[in-house]
């Protein structure tokens, strides 16, 4: 897709791009920028911010800033990988189901309903318990579970496009599967899918946090932002800053990603061939 020209960027888009760029930089270089190691215990737990430790210390007395920088790679990496994989699985299957319809569609959709009726956390717990919580298993599990939601959305969006007359024209022309998916459905399904991508990316942060809390997510001593919120949450009770920093980081990335998505979608938010 072609993005609008960079010249006249609205302020919100600029802000979003700034945040996303910064996040990408942290993902790549975060651990190198960290002043301390992520496992180093440097002082009393929950120490207030000071000149040496700009964001203070966490519940175990480790440097908050350094852990945030290390955590960027883990959190963003896991979320991004999981979401990309879930879209790679869910989108093509959803489109295919919508395009071909009939029994395979019906069975597939109902099967997905069954999977979705089980709470995600429980499904994830079972799989992770059985296979052990290594990083690939973690990513794979989240991706598979998330792909059910992506499948549903893609299927519904594509169903709206398949009945459009331009899609009918293409079918009457005898177009093959690849052309239908790639040229007729995908470009018109992009807006809602991209919005979903932004949302899923952010939800995954929190989901990983939930798993970490139960000891099945990112394993200590590795830092991840969601896990840090959980670990530091009792600090809230004492009016401490500690849990605010990782939570703020998640919020900031969420806002940044969504600002960029909104901007990329601006002017093309009309779905399903509404040209007017």
């Amino acid at each position: 897709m072609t993005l609008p020209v960079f010249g006249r960027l609205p302020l919100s888009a600029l802000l979003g791009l700034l945040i996303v760029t910064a996040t990408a930089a942290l993902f790549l270089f975060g651990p190198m920028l960290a002043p301390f190691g992520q496992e180093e215990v440097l002082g009393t737990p929950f120490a207030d911010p000071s000149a040496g430790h700009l964001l203070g210390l966490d519940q175990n007395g480790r440097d908050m800033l350094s852990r945030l920088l290390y955590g960027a790679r883990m959190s963003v990496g896991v979320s991004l990988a999981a979401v990309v994989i879930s879209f790679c699985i869910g989108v093509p299957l959803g489109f295919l189901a919508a395009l071909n319809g009939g029994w395979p569609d019906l069975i597939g959709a109902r099967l997905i309903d069954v999977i979705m009726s089980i709470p995600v956390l429980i499904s994830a717990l079972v799989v992770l318990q059985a296979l052990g919580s290594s990083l690939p298993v973690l990513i794979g599990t989240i991706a598979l579970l998330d792909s059910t939601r992506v499948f549903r959305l893609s299927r519904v969006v594509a169903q709206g496009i398949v009945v459009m007359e331009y899609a009918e024209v293409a079918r009457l022309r005898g177009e093959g599967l690849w052309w239908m998916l790639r040229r007729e459905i995908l470009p018109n399904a992009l807006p809602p899918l991209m919005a979903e991508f932004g949302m899923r990316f952010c939800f995954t942060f929190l989901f990983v946090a939930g798993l970490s809390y139960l000891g099945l997510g990112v394993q200590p001593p590795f830092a991840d932002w969601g896990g840090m919120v959980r670990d530091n949450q009792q600090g809230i009770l004492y009016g401490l800053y500690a849990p605010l920093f990782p939570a703020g980081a998640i919020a900031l990335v969420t806002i940044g990603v969504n600002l960029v998505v909104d901007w990329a979608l601006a002017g093309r938010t009309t779905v399903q061939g509404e040209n007017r």
Partner: protein
Amino acid sequence: MSHVLEIRDLRVEAPNGAVLLHGVSLDLNPGEVLGLIGESGAGKSTIGLASMGYGRGGCRITGGEIRLVGTEMREASRPTREALRGTRIAYVAQSAAAAFNPAMRLDTQILEVPLLHGLMPEAEARAWMLELFRALQLPDPEHFGARYPHQVSGGQLQRAMIAMAMAGKPDILVLDEPTTALDVTTQIEVLALLREVIRRYGTAALYITHDLAVIAQIADRLMVLRHGREVETGPTAALLEAPQQDYTRALVSERRESLGAVSGAHHRTGKALLSVEKVTASYGQTPVLHDVSLTLKRGETLAVVGESGSGKSTLARLVSGLLPPRAGSVAFDGTSLPPRFRDRSPAQLRRIQLVYQLPDVALNPRQSVGEAIGRPLALFRGLRGKALADEVARLLEQIGLPADFAARLPSALSGGQKQRVCIARALAAEPELMICDEVTSALDPLVAEEILRLLRKLQDELGMTYLFITHDLSVVQRLADRVMVMQKGRVVETGETAALFADPQDPYTRRLLDAVPQLRTDWLDEVMAAR
């Protein structure tokens, strides 16, 4: 007597700064009907809404005065304006189906205005509603109000909407294309009743439409608009007899020609290109076609005519293979066609092309004009690179668009241009039969006229065969060699166009022909008198 509505130098701007109205002025006398006529984008509806002090979708009134029964609407406070809406001025929209709340009974919605504004006690409002129902000849007026919108027909719902607008006994009705969405036979009933009600209660009206023949029956004066400016204004009869401006002349002559001229019938004697034998079809359990047969000779135009629900579009889907028939067969150029398009060979698919009613949804919004036209060229004729680009340019020239349009996306085209691109896309496959499904009904009259000319030109140059599906009999008269009239999935009558128009055999055909509005101010009176 003073005017009920005075508009002076009205300017309205869209949120993006585009000027929709460049200083339009008008006066409306009590009990007078002023017709606002023009193509889409002329600013007709904008005037209608602005007269209520309202701008749609963020449009702002940026200049001029709107004086409604003595109140300056632009200066009036919001409560004052809201108190006037519904009580002194009321609005009737094009689509009653979209304007009624489907979850509320009709009477609740109709009584809302008089009760909400405290105009009259409920018993009186109810009696007034009943009187309106009777005046509008709604069936079983005592119980009509207890129905829900989906329980009444389209024509009845449109009449209920007129009752809703009249419920507050307004001085002015703003009628925005109130009969455009209806079938011809329904349209004339609604039109006659609407005129009757307006006259009986002395209500003034702004009547907005693009159909000159319809407005000629009801308006005292006409105002012709184009691109947000007034073209000319005058008494209806005088303006139709002697239009002063070129644009008005074009509108009038398009309409006259469309009703007068009989197409120079081609009388092809060649072999049958398409023959449909006794087909029966249904959607699920609902039968839509019964025993329909037709033959179409090469180079001939057959028009399939009927009202909505007659099965004419289903016939198009059946021939193109989108809906397999329950019984019967379709043969093309002497060989039988597989019922499903999936089972047809690429050559069979290529030889039959479809052009749709709504070019907006018939073009993929993410494919440029060049891609849309180029794809059939690449697929059916194997063209690549320069040869492909040259052929796209040639096709664009053939349909009357500049070659640089190839790079444009559909959103950068007007409705008429989009329809041309759809035709070019069909032509690119070098078809022998083109199925045109209501190709002009979504277009403005002058644009539709150009599309018809293009189709006729293509027929002369390429010997194209058309299966032309339409509800517009004036189109039929100009384009078709033969006509097939359908009603409720059955063929009612088939014949040569001229003969069928001159001497219709079936009563339904006669009713359909009589219902086409004609550009004479006394047409409606004649038709109603003849009943």
